[in-house]
């Protein structure tokens, strides 16, 4: 009886590690669930920690990743969320060194998360390396998608006063109605590209 009680307790403890609920994510997410959001935040903290040359990966990273995932085709969306799920739970099957036993990735201390990810990046298994590089790619896009980071690097986009060309009189912004064409002939500031009546007519 005691044995079975202990077994039951162990099972409850194990499933708690896997199924323990996540903190509610900020409202308005388009593609990520609570688990994905928690994972992306935790991975970003490990990938871009405080200290060093640039600011830490802040709150903007999960928001960016949410948009990034939401804007891909359905099949890729699913694959990306699977990737997050896999990374989040792999540490239960293969515990992270310094992580205090079998815990979800999001429950690990930052240093253990970083060394775990690094391990994947240096793995002899190509599939593991691919998981790591895919994750790093998504997070790096998100990190550098933050205008504050770009500003810090001095890589903010150049200020450009956009001229109006004849094509701008032909259609409105993508997805808008014809009435929303913003310009008339008097606004044109650069001549017809390829000069429509050019020599090669």
């Amino acid at each position, binding site marked *: 009886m005691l044995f079975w009680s202990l077994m039951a307790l162990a099972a409850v403890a194990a499933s708690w590690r896997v199924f323990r609920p996540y903190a509610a994510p900020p409202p308005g997410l388009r593609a990520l669930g609570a688990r994905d959001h928690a994972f992306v935040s935790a991975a970003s903290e490990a990938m871009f920690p405080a200290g060093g040359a*640039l600011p830490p990966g802040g709150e903007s990273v999960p928001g960016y990743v949410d948009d990034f995932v939401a*804007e891909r085709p359905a099949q890729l969306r699913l694959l990306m969320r699977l990737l997050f799920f896999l990374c989040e739970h792999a540490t239960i099957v293969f515990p992270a060194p310094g992580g205090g036993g079998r815990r979800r990735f999001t429950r690990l201390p930052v240093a253990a998360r970083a060394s775990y990810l690094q391990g994947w990046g240096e793995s002899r298994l190509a599939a593991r390396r691919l998981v790591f590089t895919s994750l790093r790619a998504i997070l790096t896009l998100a990190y*550098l998608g933050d205008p504050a980071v770009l500003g810090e690097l001095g890589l903010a986009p150049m200020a450009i006063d956009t001229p109006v060309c004849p094509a701008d009189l*032909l*259609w409105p912004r*993508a997805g808008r109605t*014809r009435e929303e064409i913003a310009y008339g002939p008097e606004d044109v500031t650069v001549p017809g590209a390829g*000069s429509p009546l050019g020599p*090669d*007519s």
Partner: protein
Amino acid sequence: MSGGMNGAVRIFADYTGDVHERADVVVVGSGPGGAVVAHGLAAAGHDVILVEEGPPFTPDDFELDGARSMARTLREGGLRATRGYMLSTMQAIALGGGSLVNSAICVRSPQETLDGWCSDFALERTTRADLDPHYDAVEKFLGIEPTPDDVQGDRNLLFRDGCNALGYSSEPIARNVRGCRGSGECFTGCRARAKQSMDISYVPAAIAAGARVLTSVQVQQVTTAGRRATGVAGQVARPFTGELSHRVRIEAKVVVLAAGCMATPVLLQRSGGLANASGQAGENLQFHPGVAIMGVFPERTHPEFGATQGYQSLQFIPEGFKLETLWAPPGVFAVRLPGIGTELKQRLAEIPYCAVWDAIASCNRSLGRVRARRRGMDPALHWRFDPQDVQILKRALQVLAELLFAAGARKILPGVGRLPEEMHSLDEAEALRRHDLRADDLTCGGNHAFSSTRMHGDPHRGVVGEDGRCHDLDNLYVADTGILPRSPAVNPMLTCMALAHRVAAGIAERI
């Protein structure tokens, strides 16, 4: 069913019901191939309808962030890749096709390359001398000129310096650009309206000459009767979501497919295996796989300023590769930087000190195929990287490393598997020479894609003849990069446009 068209361009909001139109010629796809054909035929007085699945973009639609932009302008959100060897490849979905997002590099194929096409593909009228009048016409129309020094910026000019130091030839890249401001953002759309992408050049010119343009229409089938194409059928597609609605049917005396070398074979397959007596439709898919090395310089290079790709070297064309400078939105190009944590952050902090140079290779042994998927119009791509072609890139990597150090780089990040992440001297870069380089060691991209409906003088061995007409049908033409019989040795857009110019002239003579 609607009758005549409401204005010269239809946008998504204009479609209120099914569409049925008639024209002399229907052209599918508004990229460099389709736009040139549509303009040529409209200017010759023919009644032309140009159909494009993507929407027209205005500068207000451009997203400066690379990933956000990719989601809007590129098929499969910009994450398309081949199977077999995983090569990432990008195709646009926009009025103007690839020209909206490309770097505007316009280079004529060398004479030797075109001579090789003629001898190996039984072609009689595709020498450099044959194509020069067509190159001339396109270059004149688009104002193609070498990139001026004042918009090169350090990361392009350092390339010139490296080449000079080593005695390699180099030159400013000729581009279809008027009034470049050196914003380095060709990939996300030119806010300066300087890049002469098709949507602001050939397409408006075609409209001025009387062409009608249907945007946001996905063509799904070519209709036929015996040996004749009778038109195309498809559906209206909502911008960015692709949601399909009203039916579209266009009847025409001539059908020109210029949907790009990935989509045209899918269309042929979806139309009952059309134009495939040779068995070559969708075969022979080729790329210019590219590798890039980042060099970090002692001083800031201000990489945010300068033409996206401003300098090149054609010195190594005989060895199978071409060298170029390269820039992309920082996020996009930083995804390949190695490391994690503060180490990764340090590398990102070095971006303002960097120059990135790439090599694209003619890999004529590495072939793939395009197949329609079970559903939808996206292609299933398979491509194999031939080990001998991998060695071309090995040599290219060595030259890139040499050049970066000759230009004064203090270290390079070669991005090659099983080698150190950083190399600090030419001695360390020797590792590139000693490496038993395998395809898996490389992270390649291949945005130049071609040959999936190749031109061949022998109807048993190719899909179209020299005039772009399908061997199997009297009035079905192809005018995208699919008709290149193999690598053009240099960036393919200008040669695609020159061939399209010739296709238009041929059609004008026949109808």
